[in-house]
């Protein structure tokens, strides 16, 4: 049973524009949400997180928005750069266990 869903397997964006990656979850008990970025042949690396008591968290070019009533979060990357091309995983926690989505492959074209 997939509790964290990333419904877009891929996304292509031009360099300099905004990338928006979406994630939906079904378990209202999740209290912490994270985004990980993964390059080929490497493990996922932590990007940004947000607690369920907040609705926005910013870190440089990356902003995560949380809409608890809709059980939806999104990652905004502004401006997008070619080095951002990777697979992005949304993950949600209740306690210690991370529940991952299937990932969205982002391609940023020059």
């Amino acid at each position: 049973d997939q509790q964290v869903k990333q419904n877009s397997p891929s996304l292509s964006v031009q360099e300099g524009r905004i990338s928006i990656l979406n994630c939906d979850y079904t378990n209202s008990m999740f209290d912490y949400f994270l985004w990980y970025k993964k390059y080929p042949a490497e493990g996922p690396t932590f990007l940004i997180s947000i607690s369920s008591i907040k609705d926005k968290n910013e870190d440089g070019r990356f902003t995560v928005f949380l809409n608890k009533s809709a059980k939806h979060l999104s990652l905004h990357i502004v401006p997008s750069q070619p080095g951002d091309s990777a697979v992005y995983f949304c993950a949600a926690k209740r306690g210690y266990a991370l529940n991952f989505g299937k990932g969205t492959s982002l391609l940023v074209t020059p």
Partner: protein
Amino acid sequence: EAGVAQSPRYKIIEKRQSVAFWCNPISGHATLYWYQQILGQGPKLLIQFQNNGVVDDSQLPKDRFSAERLKGVDSTLKIQPAKLEDSAVYLCASSLWGDYTDTQYFGPGTRLTVL
């Protein structure tokens, strides 16, 4: 700071054979996790250790998978005997304490192919 180390990086075996993976977490990290990532899926937690004790192994197929973390540092994950559906990337991660705000740091993974 050195990251999470895993070996081997790649392994090809035939079904019914045995295989073992090794993980060395970030120094000082008390919590260690093993994940299985099947192609096209997100990582799925198999087992979590806090120091050398098991916190959660509810998703570990215990009839064929085993894991240990001797002395609370390095860990090994074993599959015996392997099945075709075990083909996946096995990721090891570690974190300081394992509480809900703790960041998990992942190793590069071991890609297992079962023929």
